């Protein structure tokens, strides 16, 4: 019907004079409007399923290991964590030597890697010019890409002899009054493990600290410099602002140190002793699993090793979760500031 006042468009006026609304005609021809598309639904839920799988994987891992350690949990309970007998013949198991070994080697590694790593991070984030910083950052990250076994190779044939022939004798004769540097110089032992771990942990601490330092806004640095601060004084202020993120980096490094297996196993000597001396051989949680799992004869033996793995799992999950939360909240704080 022609509407009064509206000039009919020649394209829409049909032969008999009625007006055809082109748009109404088209959409009616296409059918009723669809609320959802079958393909979209399927695709979205298919990918959702896989994402769910990733989520469930973590829980599955924890659950299976908990189940696998049922025997030793039942038999030893909490004592498992504080007893130091590890006797497969008598089927008596206590994880204390390994827990101590893991702690000592990791702490030693951090004692070396944290100052060095922070120094590297400061150099890369604050001092180095752009053209130098990029290739250097890449080199530091490459350190993290070297597999543990290669570190172990280098450890056995280069680091250990060097320690045995040069470093340990020197330490023993000059600092031998300290309980840390007493005992025969095998080369293998806690010192070697701590040193090699520090090399492996350093790139993590360095790269994450560098990223954390970068999130501190340049405006803060300019404020300090404009006041007449030196570069180092400015860096100190930036470090204070970034301190929680750096803590996160250290925790992540600790997480890596705790779980390192091959390099440590190859140089630590693999003896379940607890000793004050860094020269003596030791044993870590990861190493005992690596060395003894394939040959575990009894069910209780296997269960003990699985329980140690479960311990490692829980420790690293907590360390990683806390560290990432810290780093994440710090980045958010600076975005809104």
């Amino acid at each position, binding site marked *: 019907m022609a509407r009064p006042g509206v000039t009919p468009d020649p394209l829409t006026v049909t032969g008999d004079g009625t007006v055809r609304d082109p748009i109404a005609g088209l959409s009616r021809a296409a059918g009723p409007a669809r609320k959802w598309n079958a393909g979209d639904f399927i695709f979205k839920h298919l990918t959702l399923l896989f994402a769910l799988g990733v989520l469930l994987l973590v829980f599955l891992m924890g659950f*299976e290991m908990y189940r696998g350690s049922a025997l030793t949990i039942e038999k030893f309970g909490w004592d498992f964590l504080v007893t130091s007998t590890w006797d497969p013949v008598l089927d008596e198991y206590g994880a204390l030597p390994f827990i101590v070994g893991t702690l000592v080697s990791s702490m030693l590694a951090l004692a070396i890697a944290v100052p060095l790593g922070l120094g590297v991070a400061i150099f890369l984030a604050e001092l180095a010019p752009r053209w130098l910083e990029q290739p*250097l950052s890449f080199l530091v990250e490459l350190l993290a890409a070297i597999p543990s076994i290669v570190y172990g190779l280098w450890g056995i044939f280069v680091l250990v002899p060097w320690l045995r022939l040069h470093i340990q004798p020197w330490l023993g004769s000059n600092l031998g009054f300290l309980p840390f540097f007493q005992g025969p110089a095998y080369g293998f032992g806690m010192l070697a493990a701590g040193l090699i771990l520090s090399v492996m942990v350093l790139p993590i601490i*360095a790269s994450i600290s560098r990223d954390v330092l970068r999130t501190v806004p340049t405006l803060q640095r300019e404020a300090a410099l404009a006041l007449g601060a030196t570069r180092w004084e400015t860096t100190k202020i930036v470090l204070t602002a970034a301190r929680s993120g750096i803590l996160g980096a250290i925790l992540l490094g600790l997480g890596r140190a705790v779980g390192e297996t091959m390099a440590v196993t190859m140089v630590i000597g693999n003896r379940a002793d607890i000793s004050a001396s860094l020269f003596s051989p030791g044993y870590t949680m990861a190493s005992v699993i690596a060395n003894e799992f394939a040959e575990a004869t009894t069910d209780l033996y296997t269960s003990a090793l699985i329980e140690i793995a479960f311990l490692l799992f829980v420790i690293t999950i907590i360390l*990683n979760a806390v560290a990432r939360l810290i780093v994440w909240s710090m980045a958010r704080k600076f975005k809104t500031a």
Partner: protein
Amino acid sequence: MNGTGWWRFRWRKAKNLGMSTFAAACLLLSVAPLVLIFSYTLIQGISSLNLAFFVQMPKPVGETGGGMANALAGTGILIGLGALFGLPVGIMGGIYLAEYGNNPFGASVRFLADVMSGVPSIVVGVVAYVLVVLPMNHFSALAGGVALAILMVPTVTRTTEEMIRLVPHSYREAGLALGIPQWKTTVRIILPAALKGITTGVLLAIARAAGETAPLLFTALGNRFWSTAVDQPIASLTVFIYDYAKAPFEDWNRQAWAAGFVLISLILVISVIFRVVTRSRYAEH
């Protein structure tokens, strides 16, 4: 107070110089092991590297020479299995996170994937043992593949998500504006654009899996003979290095170095490729 001004200033400048020198020294000290390790593996291993090393089987104890053909094949099969199980989960999971994942569920998946990447590989090996070796009642390549797959999932998920997010929003808008449904836009337009980055991420995950030793020690175990069966123990490059490094034979030690050199070169090449590709992608933005 006034007279000490000059000395205070000089002290501040000296501290500044000292800390800068310290930082630079830290850097040199950190890069040194990289150079040392790489050059050592090269020097020690190059003498044992020849064609025979790649195609021959290990010789019996006491005989010199031999190769690691079975270990190479074994590693190939193991990472093939790992990729078979791990890549679909990782890539599809990454697609979900990039396309639909801006909600609490997506956030928790992202968080857990990151946290999972920190779980030691030996623990993953134990899980694979419980899941595969126990029911099957013997060690197998399958168990090793499952362990490697679990190790690959977090890396592949996150790199896939990041690569998809890097694709310019305009591609997506163009597709949607043409009336193409969202899922088709993702599959036909976004994914091909992100493919280069996703592939490199996958390569990186595979390279890392190829370098793993601990989880294989009690899943795939090892095999001195040629075997490609999925349900039997299988040799691998990394366990080969471990066994030969521990052995008291110098010839075997040298072979361990040679294998180590092959491994480290592979990983470094792929790391460089990954860095170049991701840097150029970021630069585009």
